[in-house]
């Protein structure tokens, strides 16, 4: 396998190494602004790797939607809520760490059964994908196979996706309203005035 060591492979590994560093930084950091921006960096790095993996359409969608719109949405939500995450005590991280380790080991066990990276004859790459490439040449005048599948062969799927986006927009309108008061309004459930973090401790002392 060492004879297959090319500059592209070096690029792939460099991008993956940067992705790992960014993901670990998200775990360690507490400033929400930094975390949200690192999420944008993560999306942009994965978009760069998508270009290397020949998925150009996915790359520019990820760069626009993942690194652009998601970051803007998260920054907006952060501005309406808080700027800093509370530190989590170490003993509360042990349980999640245990679960994550078990799941990772199970997945590593399955890695040996997966096709090698770049295998043209793997089951995923052999049948349907090749058929779509062959059919697009004759059926559809557009040379881009991804566009052909998305907008023609599987257009109902894409229509469903548009419906999902519409439902999400409707849900946000119903949750936050249009009066521009989102995040500033204070609710009083059951007529009680819940004042939040500052007064939580003294409220707790009031009640037995």
């Amino acid at each position, binding site marked *: 396998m060492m004879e297959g060591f090319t500059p592209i492979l070096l690029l*792939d590994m460099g991008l993956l190494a940067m992705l*790992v560093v960014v*993901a670990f930084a*998200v*775990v360690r950091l507490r400033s*929400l602004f930094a975390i949200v921006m*690192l999420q944008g960096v*993560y*999306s942009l790095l994965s978009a760069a790797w*998508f270009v290397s*993996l*020949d*998925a*150009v*359409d996915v790359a520019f*969608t*990820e760069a626009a*939607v*993942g690194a652009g719109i*998601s970051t803007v*949405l*998260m920054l*907006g*939500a952060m501005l*309406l*809520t*808080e700027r800093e*995450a509370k530190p*989590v005590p170490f003993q509360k991280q042990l*349980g*999640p760490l245990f679960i994550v380790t078990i799941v990772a080991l199970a*997945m590593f066990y399955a890695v*040996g059964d997966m*096709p*090698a*990276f*770049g*295998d*043209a004859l793997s089951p*995923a*790459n052999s049948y349907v*994908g090749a058929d*779509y490439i062959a059919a697009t*040449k004759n059926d559809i005048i557009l040379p881009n*196979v*991804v566009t052909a*599948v*998305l907008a023609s062969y599987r257009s109902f799927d894409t229509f469903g996706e548009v419906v*999902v*986006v519409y439902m*999400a927009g409707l849900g*946000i309108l119903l*949750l936050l309203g249009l009066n521009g008061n989102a*995040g500033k309004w*204070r609710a009083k459930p*059951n007529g009680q005035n*819940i004042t*939040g973090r500052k007064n*939580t401790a003294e409220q*707790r002392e009031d009640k037995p």
Partner: protein
Amino acid sequence: MTAIFEHFNFVVVIVLMMTGLFVVFATQNMIKKLVGLSVFQTSVFLLYISLSKVSGGQPPIIDKKDLHGASYPADGGYDAAPDSAYQAAEVLYSNPLPHVLILTAIVVGVATLAIGLALVVRVREVYGTIEDDEINKIDYNENLEGVAR
């Protein structure tokens, strides 16, 4: 060792996925949880797209000399492909199907993320905090769940 080298994409993607999952499990802050979910989701995209890579392939945009019935001008507009390497050999494309799936998943992902963030803003309006454990405490103290005690 060769097996790990041939499957390096899976190994790294599993590490990235588990990092995202750990953030979702371990943090109390809801916005950080959503960032962890987003990292997890992007890692799943990486898994799918790395499966579709064919080494030596090119993006699934059909080469102009492969197109039949195309309305491109026969001369002018573009010149004949200068690289002779592809002239005889059949052009190899990466698998377009995972790309289509992930394009849909990216857009659906940002829709669900937006709904999640709107819920976080609403939670903050009611509780004044977005930390999970503090919300549980307030729930208990104010009896917001309506449990008879």
